[in-house]
């Protein structure tokens, strides 16, 4: 009996001690909650609401700005797709930086969700002879064409299959998203992606406060932390509200087209019907929702 008592008090002491240690290390209850937060897809609506409220508060403290965090789900009868006119693209990289601004990508270390490849006209689409670091006075350069690559939003994505923790998945409207609170940062998805569309936060991401976009989606452009993977989401925070992705809006030559595949009147359906399209690395059977075509 006596021994039992001491054991119990020992247990009590040890739990008190660990609690004290936790508070001493500055671990408040909210952080603990965040640590134990479950996979986004297993949360109830109420839980999501609470988490988003906490997140808005946290961002306010951290960045001194009012954030609107949305968790708007996919709309019914919508499947997004993208088409890019290779004959128009001039390789100006305006889309790259519009994307960085819209989606709060880290400026240092630099993360770009869109990579623009400069290719030789003679070789056609040949990655081995392409250059992502082209830097002339003026684009387009003679004898070259440009191929911007971002997430291809595959119908059979490899990246989601390999994720050991189900932290990334395909939404009903076709967008492949990541739960940044669940990603363990193993980077298996990056090894699996044939398009280099996934990017890792190798260091603590830095975005100047005045350049932060405060209109964010939980599964999209909200500020990230170091050690997680991120990727293009077709600007989920915009397209689910009926807007175009920011790369589509910024493109000065109108090379970028976007729309709902399930809407027979959409521009994307017009392109599929009237132009001849291609997808990248079709031999891998990833079945992208991102098409390339030659408009002129």
């Amino acid at each position: 009996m006596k021994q039992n008592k001491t054991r119990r008090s020992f247990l009590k002491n040890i739990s008190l001690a660990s609690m004290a240690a936790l508070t001493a290390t500055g671990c408040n209850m909210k952080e603990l909650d965040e640590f134990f937060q479950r996979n986004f897809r297993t949360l109830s609506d109420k839980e999501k609401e609470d988490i988003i409220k906490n997140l808005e508060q946290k961002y306010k403290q951290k960045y001194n700005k009012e954030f609107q965090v949305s968790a708007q789900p996919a709309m019914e009868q919508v499947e997004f797709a993208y088409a890019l006119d290779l004959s128009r693209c001039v390789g100006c990289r305006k889309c790259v930086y519009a994307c960085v601004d819209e989606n709060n990508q880290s400026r240092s270390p630099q993360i770009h969700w869109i990579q623009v490849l400069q290719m030789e006209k003679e070789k056609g689409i040949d990655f081995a002879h392409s250059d992502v670091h082209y830097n002339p006075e003026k684009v387009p350069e003679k004898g070259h064409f440009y191929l911007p690559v971002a997430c291809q939003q595959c119908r059979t994505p490899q990246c989601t299959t390999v994720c050991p923790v189900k932290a990334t998945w395909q939404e009903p409207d076709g967008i492949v998203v990541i739960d940044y609170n669940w990603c363990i940062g193993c980077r298996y998805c990056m090894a699996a992606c044939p398009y280099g569309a996934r990017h890792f936060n190798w260091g603590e991401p830095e975005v100047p406060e005045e350049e932060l976009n405060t209109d964010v989606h939980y599964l999209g452009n909200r500020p990230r932390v170091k050690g997680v993977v991120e990727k293009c989401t077709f600007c989920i925070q915009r397209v689910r509200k009926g807007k175009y992705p920011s790369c589509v809006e910024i493109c000065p030559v109108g090379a970028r087209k976007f729309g709902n595949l399930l809407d027979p009147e959409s521009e994307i359906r017009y392109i599929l019907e009237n132009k001849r399209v291609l997808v990248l690395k079709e031999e891998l059977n990833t079945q992208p929702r991102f098409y390339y075509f030659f408009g002129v």
Partner: protein
Amino acid sequence: MNFIRFINGSIKLILKGSNAYYAWLFFLIVLVVWGAFGYADQLNEGLITTNMRDSVSWAFYIGNFTFLVGIAAAAIMLVIPAYIYNWKPIKEIVIFGELLAVCAVIMCIAFIVVDIGNPLRFWHMLPLVGTMNFPYSMLSWDFFFLLAYLIINLTVVTHLLYCIFYKKPYNKKMAQIIVLISIPMAVGIHTVTAFLYNALPARPFWNSALLAPRFLASAFCSGPAILIILFQILRKITKFEIQDKAIWTIAELMVYSMFIYLFFTIAELFKEFYSGTEHLLYWKYLLFGIGDSKEIVPYSWSSITMGFIAFVLFLIPKTRKNFVTLNIGAVLIYASVYVEKGIALIIPGFTPDVLGQIYVYTPSITEIRTAAMIFSLGFLLFTFLVKIAIAIVFENYRISDISKKEKHLIREIPTT
């Protein structure tokens, strides 16, 4: 209670030793501390302290992981010849093989932990509390297999040592069954690890059916190499008896594996170079470099050279049966497979990257320090376990030894 005494006795064992033993421990601890400070930087600043980037998103850590899975697998597969040839010291061989496997698996898991961006979220990978992506993700398969393998081997070896320690007869049937299960498991962990890379169509360098067989063959070269050297040391400093013939048989088995490995590699190279598709690029990067990017070439050729010399030394009966040349060969093949798995397997998979860009990767000092930390911790653990096993198996260290001392202590306490 009995088990606590067993643990107590084991702890007493590892605290005592010769000067050479303390020097060895000191050396390892210095390395651990030096490495730990490097790892602390990585924890603070993120994986940016490594040389990995988006293009080469896995590198030295995951290579070390792969290498150690091979060691863990081979340590147990060595039990097969012990059974087939009915070597006398089979129990001893099993015990030391399992200890090596246990340490190697723990190091494997450590390399995964240091490689991930959010080590605190490791629990997301567990079943029930997390959302394990089983059976789809090969990484969850791998983790699951490694954990099972660790538990199986740890159980058997602890049971054996515990029983000897208490002079109890061990459960022979159970031990035998578990050892027999752990043999296919050993093949399993390495196959699953190969499948981890193999099943990625985005990476043509790994997307070859020969990858898993090549993994097994190379593991059968590097794993026994450690044991050959360990058995000779044990034979010298303890009562461990193993005949020269047994060691030569292991060496002979290693020659077969080396030959099979060579054959598989040549088959792979022939297919790639003769067909000369765009997939050849990765092999070109590995063996000759592309353009001015030749940083990885010395690694690959040193691995090839060391492997080839070891093959010749093991192949010629005269040098195989000479312990000096045999040991040189064992060290060379170990180093060769280490460089092959650590660098030559992973880096060309990512260079050029999926969009054809070349990012030149070589390990950063943080990566080397972190790896040094894990390796020295692993060696430390292995030293301790081997020391306990030697005392219990060969030096008749028994429960009676500590009980006597305890009585002795009790008598002493009132006087001091």
